[in-house]
C-alpha cells in the first residue's frame, strides 16, 4: 500500500498481534530506557536466542512501526536510502527501508549487521549520534529523523572471523544488551508456548539443547538454538516420532561432521 508521494504507509509496519516473548531479565526495561532517550541499541547474542522476537515485542509494546533490514554482503547504501525509479514516463524517488523508518519514526532493525559491508554500515553513523539525520545524496536532502525513530542492530559474537568483527567506531554508538539462551525453565515454557507441545516433551527437548550446548567448542561453533528446539517440537506435535524430529530439526542443521552427528544422535536417543 503506497501513498501518493510514493511512500509506503506506516500502518504496514506495525506489529499488529502481540508477539510472545518471555523476558529473561530486565532487557525490556533497559530497552525502554534507551528508547526514552532515543539511544541506539545493539542486541548481542547467539543465533536463535530470541533477538528478533524481542525487537518485535518491544516495537509492539512501544506502539511503533518496525522496519527490518536483513544485512548481507551485497547490501548497498542505495538499497537502504532509496533510489529513483521510472513510473509512467516519470522519474520518481522511492525511499529505501532506512529512509522510510527515519521519516515515519519507526524502529529500524538491522539484523546481523556484521554481514553488511563496512562502507555500507557507515551510513547509519549520523543517525546514531545527536545529529539524528540522514543525508540523501541523490536528492541533496538532509533528512532529520522523526522524534520517535530508533535504530536497533543485532550482532552475533559467535562469528569467529577476525575479518568480520565489528569496527569500534560503529560499536561505540550503541547501548548494548546481551542475550543468551534462556534458562531451562523459561526455555521449556517458550517451547510449550510456541509449539503447543506437552510439557514433558518440551522438558526433554530443552535438556537436549542444554547438553548439545555443552560441546559447543568441539566444532559446533554454536549450540542448538531455542528456535531449533521449537522446530523440533512442532514436528513432534505434527506427529513425527521424536527421534526423527530431533534428527531433522536439530542434529542435521547443526553440523555436517559425521562424528558430531553421532554424538548428537546418541544424546537424542538417550532422552527419547
Amino acid at each position, binding site marked *: 500500500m503506497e501513498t501518493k508521494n510514493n511512500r509506503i504507509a506506516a500502518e504496514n509496519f506495525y506489529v499488529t498481534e502481540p508477539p510472545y516473548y518471555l523476558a529473561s531479565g530486565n532487557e525490556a526495561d533497559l530497552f525502554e530506557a534507551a528508547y526514552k532517550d532515543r539511544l541506539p541499541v545493539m542486541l548481542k547474542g547467539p543465533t536463535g536466542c530470541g533477538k528478533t522476537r524481542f525487537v518485535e515485542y518491544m516495537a509492539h509494546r512501544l506502539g511503533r512501526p518496525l522496519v527490518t533490514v536483513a544485512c548481507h554482503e551485497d547490501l*548497498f547504501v*542505495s538499497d537502504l536510502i532509496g*533510489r*529513483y*525509479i*521510472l*513510473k*509512467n*514516463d516519470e522519474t520518481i524517488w522511492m525511499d529505501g527501508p532506512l529512509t522510510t523508518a527515519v521519516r515515519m519514526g519507526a524502529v529500524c532493525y538491522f539484523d546481523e549487521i556484521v554481514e553488511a559491508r563496512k562502507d555500507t554500515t557507515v551510513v547509519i553513523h549520523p543517525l546514531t549520534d545527536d545529529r539524528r539525520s540522514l543525508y540523501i545524496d541523490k536528492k541533496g536532502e538532509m533528512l532529520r529523523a522523526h522524534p520517535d525513530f530508533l535504530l536497533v542492530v543485532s550482532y552475533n*559474537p*559467535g562469528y*569467529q*572471523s*577476525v*575479518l568480520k*568483527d565489528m569496527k569500534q567506531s560503529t560499536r561505540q554508538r550503541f547501548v548494548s544488551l546481551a542475550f543468551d539462551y534462556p534458562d531451562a525453565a523459561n526455555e521449556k515454557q517458550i517451547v510449550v508456548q510456541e509449539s503447543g507441545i506437552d510439557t514433558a516433551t518440551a522438558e526433554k527437548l530443552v535438556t537436549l539443547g*542444554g*547438553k*548439545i550446548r*555443552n*560441546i*559447543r*567448542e*568441539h*566444532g559446533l*561453533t554454536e549450540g542448538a538454538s531455542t528456535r531449533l528446539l521449537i522446530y523440533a517440537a512442532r514436528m513432534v506435535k505434527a506427529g513425527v516420532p521424536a*527421534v526423527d524430529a530431533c534428527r531433522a530439526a536439530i542434529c542435521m542443521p547443526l553440523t555436517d561432521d559425521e*562424528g*558430531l552427528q*553421532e*554424538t548428537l544422535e*546418541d*544424546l*537424542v*536417543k*538417550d*532422552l*527419547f
Partner: protein
Amino acid sequence: MTEFTPIPDTQDPMAAIAMADPALAREIDERLPRGGDDVPDDILRQMAADTINTLAVETSFGYAVGRGYAELIGGGKDADRILQYGNLVRTAGQESPAFGRTMAKTLVDILKWGDDALLKGFLAVSKAMKQKWLYAFTAAPLALVGKLLRPTGPDRSGRPDALEAGWAYIGLLDSVFSQDLTYNQYRRFTGRFPKMIRDFPPSKRAWRIKQLTRVVRRHFNLGSMFLDTFEDDVSLLDKESLTAFVTEGLARYDRDPERGERFLSLRARSAIEACDRMRKSVLFHEVQQPLSRYLQARFGQPVTIRPLSALPDVYADMTGTDGGTDAREMYACCDGRTIYLADEIDCHLQRDDNYRLYKALAWTEAGLLECGTYLFDLERAMDACGMTETPDTPAGGADIDRFCRLFDHRVLALDLFTIFEHGRVRTRLESTYPGGSLRFYGLLRKAMDSRLQSIRGQGQATLIDCLYAGVSLGGDTGRLLKGLSSPAGDRLMDLIRLFERHTAGRLTPESSAVAVARVFEMQGPDMFLDQGVYSPMTPVYGLRIRPDLFSRAFYGYETRAADIKQQVSQKGWQIYKSDLIRRMIEQGGLLYASDIREMATSRGMDSEGAQPGDVFDMSGMDISGLAHGQGETDRNDDDFHGHTCRYREWDATIDDYLHDHVLVRERDLAGEDMSFYRETLERRQGLVKKIRYAFELLKPEGISILRKWPEGDEFDHSRLIALAVDKRMGRTPSERIYIKRLKKERDVAVQLLVDFSRSTSNTVSGAGEKTVLDVEKEAMVLFCEALSVVGDPFAIAGFSGTGRLGVDYFMIKSIGEDMDDGVRKRIGDVRPHRNTRMGAAIRHAIAGLGKVLAKSKLLIIISDGFPNDIDYKREYAMTDTRRAILEARSNNIAVHTITVNIAGDAMLDDLYGKVRHSVISNVRELPDKLLRIYGRLTA
C-alpha cells in the same frame, strides 16, 4: 661335562649342594616341600649330583639345573619324570653348557605338563635346530617354548591357551628348521621371531603362530614380512579373520608371488581394505574422542576416559582382594574422576556390536558419576541406617570401603552395596534417559542372561548373581526365578522388595547402604553362603564399584577433608566430609575458607549448641593447607646471554600487576636436520595437496571486477542496453550499470605460539611412539605450507621454561623472515622443555605482533592443557593468562586458542572466552583442524 660324579652314600645331598654353593642350596631348600624331608633319597642324590657337577662346568648351568629339579620336585612330579629330566639335561650338557642351560630351563616347563607327545615334539625340533644352527643362537627360540607353556593369570586359567601356543610354536620351529635357509635368514629368525611372538597377548598366541607358520611354510621371507604386520592393523584381526586374511594372501601369492608379498606385508591397498573389512575388534583410541565428546555433552564438564592398561596392575586385577574380577574379565571401571575402558573389545562377532558395547560401558559408568556414587559419605550412611557405633576402620580409605568393613562379611557387603547402588543408578537413569537405558541396559541384560544360562547348564545359579541381574540390570524376575530353587526364589523376591522400598529412585548413594544394612540385620548373610563360604558375584563385564580406585584418585582430597572435618568438630560444629570433597572436585582441588564457613554454617542446626543464625567462626583453625604453596624458588640461569625482555604479571591475590616480574629469554634453535620437515610432507602428501588447494581459494585474486554495480569506474555496456530497453518499455531500469574494480587484499598477519612444555612429550593414544609434540610439529609444517600458499605474513614461536625468571621463547620463524631451509630445520629441532608460563609468552608475542603493520592480527596458541609453572598455578595462572589475552585484544590482536589432547573443560571458556577457543581431544587431528580453524578465522 664328560664325567658324572655321584654323591657318596654317606654324605647328605643338601649339605653337599650347600658346600658347593650355599645360596643355591638355600633357594632349593625353600622350594622343596618340607625342606626335602618327604622326597625320596635317590631323587635328592641325583639332584645334588647333577647340580654340583653342572655348577663345576658353569655356574649359570648349575643354577638352572638346581632350580629345575626344585621346581619339578616342588610341583609334585613323579620320580620317573624327575629322573628323565636329569638324563635329558646331562645329555644336553654334553653338547655345550649353553645348550644344557637352555634345556635345563625349558624342559621344566615341558615336563610339568606330563605330556609325552609334547616332550617328543620338542626334542625332535631341538635336534633339528642343533643340526642346522649354531648353539649360541638356539637359546632364545628354544627358551620361548618354556615361556609360552607357562599358563598366565593368577588362577592359571590360561592353561589350554598356553598348551596350544606351545604346540603351535613347536610347529613353527619345525617348519623353519626343516627348510634350508641361509645364515642371514636363520639370524633374522632367532633375532626377531621369538621377541615378537612373546609379545602376542597370551589368548591370541596359538592361532597367530599357526597362521604365521602357514606363511613361513610357503617361504621364509614371506613369513618374515608377514610377522611385521602384527605391529600394524593385522593385530586387530581375530582368529577367523586372520585365517581368512592369510588364506587370501597365500592364494594371491600362488597366483603371483609379488602381489602375494604386497598383500601379506600390508603394502597393497586391497590388503589394508581387507584388513579393515575383516576386523571385528574395536580399539580404545578409536572410541576415545566420540565418547569424550558425548560425556562432555552429558555432564557439561570433561570426564576423562583412559584405557584400562593405564591402571597399575595392582588395581587392574582384583582377584584375591575382593574375590571377583580378574583383569581379563574387567572391561570398565571408574575412580570417581576417570572412566577406564578396555584397551580393545572383541566380544561380539560384529564390529558395530563391539563399538556399541564400548558406548554401553562408558554410559553406565558415567551413571555412577552422575548419580554421585563416589560421593558416598560414611557419616550420612550411618545416620540413614540408624547406626551409632563408630567404625573401627583405618581413616583415609574410601567411605564405601569403611562402610563395608562394618560387617563380618566385607566382600559380601561390598557386593550387596554394588548391586543396590547399580540398581539405584539404573532406576535414576531410566527416568532421566529412557531411550539410553533401553539401549544399554538391554545390552548388558542380554550378556547376563547368556551367562546365567551357561551357569544353569552346570548347576544352579547363585542367589547373588540373580540378585545382581534383577536389581542392578533390571532383569526379568520371572526368568530369574526359573533358575533358582523355591526358597532361594522367595529370598530373591524379598531382596528385590527391600531394594524397591529403600533404594530405588533415591537421590543419594547412602540409600544403598540402608538396603545393605537391612539385609544383614533382617535376613543375615547365611542365605548367600554355601557351607559357610561366600562365592563372590560375577558382574557382567566385570562392572564393579571400586572404592580402592576412588581412594587412589582422591587420596589428597580425602585426607584434607578428614583433617578439616576433625578441626571443625573440635570446635563443636559439624561438617560432612563428602561435601568438602565435592567442593574440592568442583573447584579443581581448591578449597577456600569461605567454603568451610558456608558448609559448617549450613549444617549448623545439627551442631551442638548452635542457634539458628549462628555463623561458624574459623578462628583458631589451622587452614594453612588451603593457601597456595609459594615455597619453590625461581630458577635464574646466569649462563644465558641472549636477548631478554621483562614483562609484568597479574597477581590475582593483590588484584594488580607485578611490574617487571617475569623474564622472557629468546632462545635459538640450532636446527641441523631438515628430514622431519621433508618426511612430514611426504607422509602427509595427500593432505598437503588438499590444503594447498583450499588455501589457493583463500588467496586474493588481485583485482576483482564487479559487474552490475550501482556505482563504479566505467559503464557495463550490456547493462546500459538493458537500461535503454527498460526505459523504452516504461519499466524501472536497474541502477546497477557500472563496473567496479576492487583491489582485493588479505591484510592479515598471524603468529602461531606453541606450547613446548614437558607434557607434550606424552605419547598420543593409538599412534605408537608419536608424542603430542610430534603432532604439533607436523601441524607447524602444514601451517607453513598453507600460509606460504595464501601469502599471509606469519611467525611461529614456542614457549616453555621454569620459574618467573626463566621463560624460554623459541623463535622458529619471525614475521619478516623468508620460509627457508633454516626455518624447516628449526621445526625439526623442537624438543619438549619444562613448564607453561603462558601469560609471559603471550605478552612477548603481543610485543612482536605489535610492530607488524597489518589491518588484522591474529595470535593462535596451541597448548595441551592449562598454564602451569613454579608459583604459577590454578587461579593465579588462569587470571594472568586471561589478563594477557585481554591485553592482546586491546592491542587489536585477535587471540584464538587450540587446546589439544584433553576432553575439554568448562574452565577453558573462562580462560580464553566463550567462542575464542577450540578443543581437539584427539591430537592426531590437529594438523588438519588447525588449518580449518585458520581458514574459518580469516575467511
